[in-house]
C-alpha cells in the first residue's frame, strides 16, 4: 500500500531513534557502560541487568502501544487504553495480594499471579460484554470500566488494611517500576506478546473497518462481533503479558497510538507495528532516565513516561491534531 508523503522518512527516523535509545538504555545506569568494549564485569552487568531490563521495557511499551491502538479502534473511543479493560486492575489486585500477604499459590511468583489476575479479568469483561448481538462495544466498555472500578476499590481496601513493607513494593509495582525484572519471564512474555500482535496483524483490516462502525464493517464483508472478539483477545494477551512482566505502566497505551497516527495516518497495517516500536522506545527511554537522573535512587519508568509524554500530548491537543 502506498504511504503518505513523508511517512517512509518518519518510519525510518523512528527506527533509527529506537536503536539509538536502546544503546543508550543499555549503557546508562548507576555505572555508565560502553556496550562496545566488553570486559568480564561489563558482560556480567549487561547480561544480568541491563539487557533484560531494556528488553522488558521494549516489550512492555510495545505491547501497551499496540493494545491502545486496538482498543481505540474497536471501542471507537480515543480515550480507550489497556486500563479501560479493567485488566490492569485485575493484575494489580492479584499481584498486590501476592506482594503484601506473601501469597504463594503452588509456588507461583508475583508476575504469574498478575498474569492470572489479568486473564481472569479479561475473560470476565468478555463474558459481561457479550449481549444478544454478540460482543458490543458499549457493553464491553461498561463491563471493563465497572469491573475495573470494583477491582480498584478492592485493591484500595487491601492496601488500607496492609501494614507490612509489601505495601511499598506494591506501590512501586503499580507505578511501573522495572528495577526487579530479569530474564525469567521474558520468553513467556515474548511469546504472548508476539501471539497477540500476530493475531492483531491478521485482523488489521477488520480493525480499520470496525473504526468506521459496525454497519460499515459488515458492509465491507466482516463479522463485527467476531472481529472485535479476536482483537480484544489480542489486546488482552499483550496487556496481561506486559503487566505480568514489569507491573502497571499507564499513559503509553493511551498516547502512543495518537502520536503515531498523527505522523503516519491511521491504517492499522502501519499503526500497529509502529505503535510497538514507538511504545517500546518511549518506555525504554523513560526507564533509562528513571534509573539515571536521580541515581542511586530509581524512579519508576511509568512515572517518567507520563512526565515525558504528557506535555507532548497536551501540545498535540492544543494543535487539534489528535484523533
Amino acid at each position, binding site marked *: 500500500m502506498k504511504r503518505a508523503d513523508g511517512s517512509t522518512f518518519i518510519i525510518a527516523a523512528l527506527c533509527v531513534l529506537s536503536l539509538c535509545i536502546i544503546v543508550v538504555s543499555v549503557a546508562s545506569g548507576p555505572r555508565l557502560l560502553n556496550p562496545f568494549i566488553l570486559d568480564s564485569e561489563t558482560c556480567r552487568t549487561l547480561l544480568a541487568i541491563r539487557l533484560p531490563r531494556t528488553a522488558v521495557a521494549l516489550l512492555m511499551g510495545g505491547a501497551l502501544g499496540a493494545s491502545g491502538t486496538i482498543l481505540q479502534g474497536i471501542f471507537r473511543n480515543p480515550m480507550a487504553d489497556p486500563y479501560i479493560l479493567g485488566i490492569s486492575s485485575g493484575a494489580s489486585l492479584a499481584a498486590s495480594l501476592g506482594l503484601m500477604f506473601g501469597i504463594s499459590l503452588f509456588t507461583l511468583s508475583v508476575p504469574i499471579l498478575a498474569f492470572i489476575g489479568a486473564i481472569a479479568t479479561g475473560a470476565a469483561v468478555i463474558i459481561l460484554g457479550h449481549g444478544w448481538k454478540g460482543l458490543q462495544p458499549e457493553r464491553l466498555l461498561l463491563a471493563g470500566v465497572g469491573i475495573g472500578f470494583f477491582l480498584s476499590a478492592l485493591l484500595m481496601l487491601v492496601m488500607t488494611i496492609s501494614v507490612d513493607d509489601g505495601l511499598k513494593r506494591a506501590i512501586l509495582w503499580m507505578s511501573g517500576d522495572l528495577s526487579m525484572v530479569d530474564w525469567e519471564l521474558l520468553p513467556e512474555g515474548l511469546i504472548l506478546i508476539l501471539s497477540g500482535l500476530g493475531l492483531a496483524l491478521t485482523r488489521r483490516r477488520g480493525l480499520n473497518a470496525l473504526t468506521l462502525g459496525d454497519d460499515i464493517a*459488515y458492509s*465491507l464483508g466482516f*463479522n463485527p462481533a467476531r472481529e472485535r472478539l479476536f482483537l480484544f483477545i489480542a489486546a488482552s494477551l499483550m496487556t496481561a503479558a506486559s503487566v505480568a512482566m514489569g507491573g502497571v505502566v499507564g499513559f503509553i497505551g493511551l498516547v502512543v497510538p495518537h502520536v503515531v497516527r498523527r505522523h503516519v495516518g491511521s491504517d492499522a497495517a502501519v499503526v500497529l507495528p509502529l505503535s510497538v516500536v514507538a511504545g517500546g522506545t518511549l518506555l525504554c527511554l523513560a526507564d533509562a532516565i528513571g534509573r539515571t537522573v536521580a541515581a542511586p535512587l530509581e524512579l519508576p519508568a511509568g512515572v517518567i513516561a507520563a512526565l515525558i509524554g504528557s506535555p507532548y500530548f497536551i501540545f498535540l491537543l492544543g494543535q487539534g491534531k489528535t484523533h
Partner: protein
Amino acid sequence: MAMLEFANVSFSHGPKSFMDQLSFSVSEGELLGLMGPNGSGKSTILKLAAGLLSPKGGKVLVGRQMIGSYSGRERAKLVTYLPQQLDLQAPFRVGELVRMGKYPHDGSPGLTVEDALQIVGLHRKVKTRLAELSGGELRRAYIAMTLVQGARILLLDEPLASLDIKYQFDLYRLLKDIVREKGVSVIMSLHDIGMGAMLDRLILIRNGRIVSEGNPDEVITDEIVRQTYGLNDFADAYLASNRSLCRALALPG
C-alpha cells in the same frame, strides 16, 4: 433483471409485528427511492436488504440467492450499505477510507481508488482527513469507497439529510451517473418530495406497508402524500413549493 427482491418479507421488533408480507423488487441500473414518515420502516428495509437484519418470514433475495446465504466477502461484492450517520471523527484520510473498498477482493477490484476519487470529485483530497471534509464531501468519500468495493447494489439511508441544495443535487447527479454508467442499482431513503420526484421509481411506506409504488408522478399525488404523512394545514403550499423548486433546478434527463 431483478437485482434485489423482497418476497413476502415479515419483520418484527420484539413480539410486535412491524412489517408483514412486504414484496417488491429492484432492477439493474435503477435509482429507487423509499419515502414515508419517520418510523415507517425505510431504514429497516435497507438493513434487511443489506443482511444486517434477518426477516422473520419471507425471503430477501440478491441475485436470486437469499442474502444470508452469501459469505461476508461475497455479500460485500454485491451489496453495500451506508448508514445515515457517517462517522466524521473516524481518524482516516480520504485515500485510506477509499482503499478499504478493496477489502472484499483478493485481486484488483473493478475500479481503482484514483478512478473512484475522480468520479466523486475528490481526487485532490486524497490526503485530507475525514474530519476536515464538509458533509457532502464526506458522503462522496464513502460512496467512492463503495465504488472501489464494486457492489452491484448500493443502499443509502437518507444520504441527502443535512446537505444543502447544492450538495443534494451534486449527490443526485453522481448517483444518476453511477446508475447509468455502471449499471449499479441504488436504493435510497429520503424525505425530500422534490428530490423524490427526480428518481426512477418511488415506494411510499407507512407503518411497514407499501402505500404506493411506481413512477414518481404516480406516487407523489397530493392525496397520497397527504394521507401517508397525515398532512392537513399547509399541505398544498408545501407540495407546490417543492415542485416549483425542482422545476427551477430541473436537471437534464
